[in-house]
């Protein structure tokens, strides 16, 4: 008898609301930007949600992995998404949150051989891996071979340490690192949603500040 029709705002209405909150000049910069997120775990899935809500034009989502029950305590997936590719699960979730965002998804590992192909369209790259050696590999790769791009990396968000030790550091002109720089999950032994989300929020905020041309000194 009754058909449920999901009504979502039009693209114009959506854009107007974003401009109202961010200012038209800044929103134009957000809408024109392409941001790549390498790794869709605790950091990447949270970075993606912040950036999607902010109305970033295009997100490049990269992860080879599937959603696991051990991810759900800190990553932005749902119980009924266990077993799905993280790229598919996250883009489904993001479409519900921000229906007019453009996506590019790659279900593969970022390695030296494919990095340029995967990342060449991005203005800003977020390093959101969990493995320290992968973090260093991507950082060296981006800084050595893609000097025109910004890199926002993360290091040190494990454990129950103070929220206030998570910081954003501008190492050089186009290279930022967020985190406490020290707490290694293999030594600390735990990861909690709130602290990982703090670090992800630092990364997402750094991306937005770069786009708004407000740089750390």
């Amino acid at each position, binding site marked *: 008898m009754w058909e449920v029709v999901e009504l979502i705002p039009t693209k114009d209405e959506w854009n107007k609301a974003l401009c109202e909150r961010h200012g038209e000049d800044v929103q134009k910069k957000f809408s024109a930007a392409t941001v790549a997120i390498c790794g869709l775990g605790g950091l990447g899935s949270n970075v993606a949600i912040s950036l999607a809500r902010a109305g970033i034009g295009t997100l490049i989502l990269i992860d080879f992995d599937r959603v696991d029950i051990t991810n759900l305590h800190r990553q932005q997936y749902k119980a009924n998404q266990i077993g799905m590719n993280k790229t598919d699960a996250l883009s489904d979730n993001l479409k519900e949150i921000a229906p007019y965002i453009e996506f590019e998804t790659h279900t593969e590992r970022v390695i030296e051989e494919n990095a340029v192909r995967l990342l060449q369209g991005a203005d800003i790259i977020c390093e959101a891996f969990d493995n320290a050696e992968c*973090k260093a590999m991507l950082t060296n790769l981006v800084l050595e071979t893609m000097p025109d791009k910004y890199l926002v990396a993360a290091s040190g968000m494990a454990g129950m340490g103070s929220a206030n030790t998570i910081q954003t550091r501008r190492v050089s002109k186009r290279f930022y690192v967020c985190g406490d720089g020290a707490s290694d999950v293999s030594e600390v032994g735990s990861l909690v949603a709130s602290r990982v989300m703090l670090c992800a929020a630092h990364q997402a905020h750094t991306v937005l500040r770069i786009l708004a041309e407000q740089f750390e000194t």
Partner: protein
Amino acid sequence: MTFDREPDLDNANVGMPDTRILGITKYIKEVTKSVASFFVVFGGVFMVKINGEELNVAGKTVAEYLTTTNYDPKRIAVERNGDIVPKAQYGETVLKDGDSVEVVSFVGGG
């Protein structure tokens, strides 16, 4: 230090430094600077700033410096004067006096 004159009761000079003391301080500063530059030029003290700390490692390559540290080479990125040092060039990149180096060492978790 003694003052050989009466305090000035005129408010015009309140808060103004004694010009003679200022002169001596300036002189001491200049002498210190000359002595320091003498040592830098003739004494062979060549400093490199690494993660904000002045270290006497000028003349060493990045690879040589790293062997004196606990950094895991697989977990780091090295920047010198704002530019990345490519991993393949650690062995041939010589640190120079006045260089500013950042070693970013990654830890796991994400």
